[in-house]
């Protein structure tokens, strides 16, 4: 890296691309995106299904189409890219150590950094399913890579544990490719992903859906031959006597995503235990000066459109930081209150317009989101953990804050609860 780098972006998925583009558009000099794979776009290449860009572009695009719009723009703006380049280490003083197929091992010290590493899937070992340890158990995203990029299907008789979006999308995809999806098993009393995917991936193909059930045992060795599924009680423990055995040659796990933050931790970035991603303020700066974060590395999204929008904030802020501009300060804590699992950003300045992103803990009907004494949203017909809630708070509404406010509690309120 001869020339000084203004903004380095780690990861070239939807978050990284959007951050890099915005950094360029807002006046950053040299912007470099570091990507460990051979191609830009992160996971979008394996997301061949539609539903991308409905909000951002007002069009129904597939993952590769959505990716290409951003890549094209990044190329037009002369964003630099380093492919097959893995960032191995990151320090609070911005020193990055990189291993690259083309350049070997090198280090650089960009003025600002955007963390856009995305997230990864929870595995069998994260949820601890008893039984044998055969082949034929994959995460849903791994199976998605096999089917959509590499060109083979993992099996013909498939059970899917978890009803997250990727799991449901794979249920449809594998069915269309000729496999039999024997069951989708969900431990909660409701589906984990979007309602659109429940209808178009599960009901459309009449795939058996077992709510309040889990896989209580895995059978077979060296290849999986069956699973036992059981109904669960309120504490999610299998209920004796409810077991049923389902023959299968493949088990897919769609049991949650975790923001990827090994590098963030190395740089001393503090994570929010409720979310798994860095604690950020409204300009998406972490506790480490000049290190910003966006996308699924911050919190797991259900729609890519929001990933892009949020990362643009990080990109613009990184560009401003690199130029030495004064950034909004002041840290009022946003505290999750009644039926709110988390709020991002975790702190706000209280002076600028801000969009709050949050998830509820439990589904509720006719609910409003109440942001302290600042504002309350209109009634929402339903809120669900699977659908992120977005609340716009204006600077003029924030004028209602009392001098010296240190914390704002965000509640999900209903008539019954009031």
């Amino acid at each position, binding site marked *: 890296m001869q020339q000084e780098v203004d903004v380095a972006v780690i990861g070239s998925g939807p978050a990284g691309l959007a951050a890099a583009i915005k950094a360029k558009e807002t006046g950053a000099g040299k912007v470099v995106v570091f990507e460990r794979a051979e191609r830009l776009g992160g996971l979008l290449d394996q997301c061949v299904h539609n539903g991308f860009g409905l909000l951002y572009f007002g069009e129904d*695009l597939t*993952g*590769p189409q959505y990716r*290409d719009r951003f890549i094209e723009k990044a190329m037009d703006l002369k964003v630099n890219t380093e492919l097959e380049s893995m960032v191995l280490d990151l320090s609070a003083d911005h020193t990055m150590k990189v291993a690259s197929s083309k350049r070997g091992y090198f280090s650089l010290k960009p003025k600002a950094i955007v963390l856009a590493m995305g997230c990864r899937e929870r595995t069998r070992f994260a949820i601890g399913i008893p039984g044998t340890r055969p082949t034929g158990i994959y995460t849903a995203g791994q199976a998605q890579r096999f089917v959509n*990029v*590499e060109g083979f299907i993992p099996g013909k008789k498939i059970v899917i544990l978890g009803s997250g979006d990727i799991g449901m999308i794979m249920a449809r995809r594998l069915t269309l490719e000729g496999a039999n999806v024997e069951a989708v098993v969900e431990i909660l009393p409701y589906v984990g992903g979007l*309602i659109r995917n*429940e209808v*178009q991936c599960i009901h*459309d193909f009449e795939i058996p859906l077992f709510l309040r059930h889990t896989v209580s045992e895995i059978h077979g060795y060296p290849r999986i031959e069956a699973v036992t599924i059981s109904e669960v009680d309120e504490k999610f423990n299998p209920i004796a006597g409810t077991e049923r055995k389902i023959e299968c040659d493949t088990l897919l796990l769609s049991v949650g995503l975790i923001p990827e933050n090994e590098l963030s931790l190395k740089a001393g970035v503090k994570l929010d235990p409720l979310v798994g991603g860095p604690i950020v303020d409204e300009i998406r700066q972490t506790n480490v000066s000049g290190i910003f974060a966006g996308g699924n590395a911050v919190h797991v999204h259900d729609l890519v459109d929001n990933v892009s929008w949020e990362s643009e904030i990080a990109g613009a802020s990184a560009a401003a930081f690199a130029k030495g501009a004064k950034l909004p300060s002041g840290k009022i804590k946003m505290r999750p209150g009644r039926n709110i699992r988390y709020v991002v950003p975790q702190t706000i300045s209280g002076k600028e317009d801000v969009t709050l992103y949050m998830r509820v803990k439990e589904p509720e009907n006719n609910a409003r989101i109440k942001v302290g004494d600042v504002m309350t949203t209109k009634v929402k017909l339903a809120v669900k953990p699977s659908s992120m809630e977005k609340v716009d708070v204006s600077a003029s509404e924030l004028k209602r804050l009392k001098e010296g406010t240190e914390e704002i509690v965000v509640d999900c309120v209903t008539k019954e609860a009031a």
Partner: protein
Amino acid sequence: MQREVNVICVGCPSGCEVTLTIDDKGEVTKITGNRCKEGKKYATEEYENPVRVLMATVLTQGSSQPLLPVRTDKPILKTRLSEGMRVLARVRAKPPLKAGDMLVPNLLNTGANIIATSDLTS
């Protein structure tokens, strides 16, 4: 003889279960269970014309990339998705192709074309 058809609305996280009452001529005579106007509109469309975009991959020939992602350029009847897949099983995509290039015109006489959603190089 009238009958009932249930449709889950996908318009918002509510996921309302909308019930349509259909008379013997196949006309919708009553709609219940929706909680807003959109639900009524969605349920009627979903009953009269349930369409989906078909998206999949096709095998390539002469490319280092084994598969090319494709889609229909407009939604088709959901009952025809499996038939559509059987057509795609016979398609071999040969480079060079650009995203948007047509691979199968007028799939199954639906009026929808199968297009590439990504470039394909050798």
